[in-house]
Structure formats: C-alpha cells, structure tokens
C-alpha cells in the first residue's frame, strides 16, 4: 500500500501530534467543554488514535471495533454533558492536524510521494467520516434512552406516513389540470 510510509510517519510522531492536538482542543472556542476533561485522559485518547493509526485504519469491518468504540464514545460524551457539536468539532480538529502533517510531507515533483499522500488522505477521511457517524448515532441513542427523544422519521410508522403524504402531493402535481365542463344553453355558457 502506497500510503504505509505516511501512516507510519504519523505513528512515529504520535506524541508530538497528540500534544499539538490537545492544545488545539483546549483553546479552540468550539471545543470549550474539553477543558473540563482530565488532561491525561484527553491526551491518552488522542495518543491512542495517533500511535495506532494503522491499526484503526486497517480495522476490518467484521471486528467492528471502530463502530463499537466510537458509538460508546458518543454515549460517554452525552453522559459527560458535552454538546454533540463540540464532540464533532474535536474530531475534525484532530483530523485537520493529521492532514496538515500528511500534506506537509509533500514533494511537489514526486508523483509517487503525492500518490502516497492522496491515498493516505482517502483513508484518513473515510476513517473520520465513519467515526463522526458512529459518535452521532451513539449520542442519539442516549437522547432516546435518557430523554425519550427520537427523531420522528426514525419510527417506521411515521416514515410510512410521511412517504404516503409525499405520494399524495406528487399525485396532485401529476394530475392533468381539469377544464371546467361547458354546458351550452341558449344564449349563454354555463360552467358545470
């Protein structure tokens, strides 16, 4: 795999990257809740992603570890009273720093090196897309279990009703416009 070299570079620099990401989370206005987390715990979480990056990227779908881990993270952050947008912002700030690090290793004249970076970016983006989705689903599960809130269209019967309403709307649009019936009587036209 082309991107192996770059991914190993992230792992080799995991400590420095984790420190930088931690500082961003602690100072960025969109992640202010992270200031309430124990710094060692926060650092350990970020370091786990950076130091085992190839492990997380290679995670096969059968094992489902990313799914379980990040779904639980979403639940955990809910219990810790974090707003979901803050959790998502923290994930994106992490991704951004990792991407900056990857992109900084670019050699503009080397197609091989640039291919490695593009391939690594694909893995990075796919991983964080998956993570953000799992965190959101975990958080939504807690909204349901703690507050009984469930988005209406999650419920099959409400989804079916909404689809039926859409079908009816479309029927009205598709219908041929009806012309009034003309009834001829002597000297006048009466609209039927």
């Amino acid at each position, binding site marked *: 795999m082309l991107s192996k070299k770059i991914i190993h570079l992230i792992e080799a620099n995991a400590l420095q990257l984790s420190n930088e990401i931690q500082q961003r989370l602690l100072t960025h206005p969109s992640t202010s809740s992270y200031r309430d987390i124990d710094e060692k715990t926060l650092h350990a979480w970020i370091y786990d992603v950076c130091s085992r990056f190839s492990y997380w990227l290679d995670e096969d779908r059968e094992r489902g570890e990313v799914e379980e881990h990040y779904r639980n993270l979403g639940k955990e952050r809910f219990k810790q009273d974090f707003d979901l947008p803050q959790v998502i912002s923290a994930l994106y700030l992490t991704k951004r720093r990792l991407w900056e690090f990857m992109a900084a290793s670019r050699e503009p004249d080397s197609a091989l090196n640039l291919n490695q970076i593009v391939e690594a970016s694909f893995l990075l983006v796919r991983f964080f897309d998956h993570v953000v989705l799992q965190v959101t689903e975990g958080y939504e599960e807690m909204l349901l279990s703690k507050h009984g809130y469930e988005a209406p269209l999650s419920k099959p019967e409400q989804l079916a009703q909404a689809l039926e309403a*859409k079908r009816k709307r479309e029927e009205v649009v598709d219908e041929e416009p009806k012309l009034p019936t003309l009834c001829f009587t002597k000297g006048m036209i009466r609209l039927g």
Partner: protein
Amino acid sequence: MLVKLIEMIENNAETMAGELKNKLLTDPATPSYQTLDDRILYENIFEVYSRLGYWLLRDAEKGEVPTHYSAIGAQRFKEGFPLHQVVQALVATKRHIWDTILEKGIMRTAKELDSAVDFITYLNRFFDMAIYYTTLGYYRALNLKTAS
C-alpha cells in the same frame, strides 16, 4: 489546476446532482430523504456542486456556511430527520465529488496530484464546517424543543 478540478465538478453539477439524488433516495442508510420532494432534494445538491468554487474558495470572506448550514440543520430537525442520516447525506455529497474526480482520471502527473492535495484540503475544510454547522443548527433546535 485546482480551478480546473473545481470547474470539472461545476460543469458536471446536473448529472452529479441527479446521481446523488437517486443514491440518497435508495440508500437504506438515508430513508428520511425519501420524504423530501425530489425536486427540492435535487436543487439542494445542485446548489453545492454548481457553486463549488464559491463554497471552497470564496465563501471565507462572506461566511455563508455557518448561517446556511445551521438553517439546514434546524430545517431537518423540524422535518423529523434523525441527525445521523443528515450527516450521512453530507458525507455522501462529499464522497461523490471525490469519486467523480477519480472516475475522470485527471490525477496522473505530479502537477495534477499536487493540485489534488490542495483540493482535498479545501474540500474537507468546507464539508467539515458544513457538517459541524448542520449539527449545531439541529442540536440548537432540539434543545429549544426539549426546553419548551
């Protein structure tokens, strides 16, 4: 070259919007999107692809992303969509751009690949912000509802 990549997406906006609309309407991960009027769904997607250059390069000054996507988040909440489906749809919108670029095979030379690295930076920055603000708009609407 970066502009060329963006223009390629903008020039294919109609086809791409149609393809993604069909995908969202049939994907088991986004069933709520089947309840939107097809035309509105198409226009929402077309709006992103046909003005990609604006969103990626020029909006930084105007700052339309926070207001636009917060409003979409609040709207989807009002319509009863689960948030993870909204996030999924935005991820699919981004992925379709990348898939199209790969399909067109315009990343062969070092120069093209170098531009692709810039493109990835701008594309992800935009979609990260779009997903963040959509979530924020949805979450605020949810809080308003649970508070009232």
